[in-house]
């Protein structure tokens, strides 16, 4: 649905986006990941015609954005939630959008309801909105025209955990109904749970892409690891060693270089009670993300911590 071909955007000698190509398919959520300044926003701005490309092309549904009649009805865009007139009320912002797109004004109420902005909040001026509320307003604005394509730049920015959860559900549902979603983030965990495909960008170039599983495979070099916690870690560790599965302490449990099923089998044989067993590559994805983008991180001497024994998957 969204097709980016050989897109380059240069500012003088600085190349913000360097010959990138990708495609977003209907019914999927594409996560666009990279650190600040990697070129995500520039790419999205080119998509909707706010920034002219230096080279390359972007088409949406086979059309150039500027050729789409009444584009708000087809492509929902949120590029910067703070780019609203501070003196307008939230409701007025949506009403201007609805009027421009030729929508009935009930649509404004529907959208306010959808993003959980109540009547009192909608009558307040955007100046007095928190970033999270602006983000909700921006999402409402993007969805106003009932579009088939959504382009959202850092939509989770400023949302509280409940808000992020809500947004994930919303976008997932939207894609399940056949919509095409492209959302950017600089935080992996915001995206990895809902993105069908992830595109990692650093220094204006795509450094990796694929599904979560594909990326994980690449991240661990094809070797799977398992995180396991049991009531008797010492005994388990010994049992695993006997089976030739090397285990190392990690947090309150063990990190084993093996598939979870093999670890579980060993534990079952020895009748060791497991309290936690799962694939341990989540950290690998985060690590991959950091490594791939390390050269573009602002922290010059940044080196990813070797093992954070990540017990949480965000």
């Amino acid at each position: 649905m969204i097709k980016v071909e050989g897109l380059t955007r240069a500012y003088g000698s600085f190349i913000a986006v360097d010959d990138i190509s990708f495609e977003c398919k209907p019914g999927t959520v594409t996560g666009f990941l990279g650190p600040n300044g990697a070129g995500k926003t520039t790419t999205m701005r080119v998509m909707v015609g706010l920034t002219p490309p230096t080279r390359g092309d972007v088409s949406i549904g086979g059309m150039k954005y500027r050729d789409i009649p009444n584009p708000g009805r087809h492509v929902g865009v949120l590029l910067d939630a703070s780019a609203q007139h501070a003196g307008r009320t939230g409701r007025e912002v949506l009403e201007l959008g609805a009027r421009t797109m030729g929508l009935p004004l009930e649509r404004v109420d529907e959208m306010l309801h959808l993003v959980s902005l109540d009547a009192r909040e909608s009558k307040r001026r955007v100046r007095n909105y928190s970033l999270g509320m602006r983000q909700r307003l921006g999402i409402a604005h993007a969805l106003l025209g009932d579009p088939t394509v959504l382009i959202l730049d850092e939509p989770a920015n400023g949302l509280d955990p409940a808000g992020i959860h809500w947004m994930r559900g919303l976008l997932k549902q939207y894609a399940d109904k056949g919509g095409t979603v492209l959302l950017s983030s600089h935080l992996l965990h915001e995206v990895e749970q809902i993105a069908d495909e992830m595109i990692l960008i650093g220094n204006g170039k795509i450094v990796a892409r694929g599904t979560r599983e594909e990326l994980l495979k690449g991240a661990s070099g094809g070797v799977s690891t398992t995180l396991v916690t049991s009531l008797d870690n010492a005994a388990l560790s010994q049992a695993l060693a006997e089976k030739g599965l090397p285990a190392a302490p990690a947090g309150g449990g063990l990190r084993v270089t093996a598939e979870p099923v093999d670890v579980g089998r060993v534990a079952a044989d020895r009748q060791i009670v497991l309290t936690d067993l799962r694939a341990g590559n989540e950290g690998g994805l985060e690590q991959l993300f950091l490594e791939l983008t390390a050269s573009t991180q602002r922290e010059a001497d940044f080196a990813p911590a070797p093992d954070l024994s990540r017990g949480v998957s965000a």
Partner: protein
Amino acid sequence: MSTAVTTSGLDVSQTPRTPFGRLVSVELRKLSDTRAGRWLLIAIAALTLLVLVIQMWVVVAQNTHVTFNDFLQGMNTPMGILLPVLGVLSVTSEWSQRTAMVTFTLEPSRVRVIAAKLVSLLVISVLALVIGLVLASFANVLYGAMSGNSVVWGSVGKLAFFYLLLYVFGMATGFAFGALFLNSPAGIVVYFVYSFVFPGLFALGAALMDWFSKLQPWIDFNTDQNGLIDGTIHGKGWAHLVVAGLIWLALPLAVGIWRIRRAEVK
């Protein structure tokens, strides 16, 4: 989210291009839906009324003979100063408040947006003219009743046309400066320098240098508009107006539109 389709194209058959009239009505709404915009409109109306009341009080007290045109002239002071500010803000607020990002995503043709803004300013000009004519007529009649002097109307139709031109020129010049700088303070300051400082400098130059006094009417758009204000413009005055208008209105407007079309909207 019910119309989402799984084909790899957009079905645009149900969504015609946004009609121009709708863009104009949205732009009109934007002029008054913020506190700043609304108070500017209220201030214009209030100051106009205030000037009229003071003028009425003075002419009746001093028993001065005035005409319909004098009341129009009185009102032109607040309108002539503040309407152009509205013109500046109608374009610069989109940039300072960054709403241009939304405006140009909903209507990718920037020229259409600019045209809609200009037409919305034209609508405001007509509205200002109608209000001005009604107030001036009312004042003129009241003046006759209060002073006992005869009521002089002059050629109302001609004056109405001239004042419409004045308001349109003022707003369009403000808009042009706004488009040129894409920054509210810069646009307003430069507009005021152009309309209050330049005429004085031009007059000084004309008084000191003979060659400049011949050039001045061709380049002094403000002073040329005095012929519209007092209704005395004729022949060569129109030529002056057109040439100076090309310099101070058409040129900055063209450059401003070129700039907006090319600008990266951030």
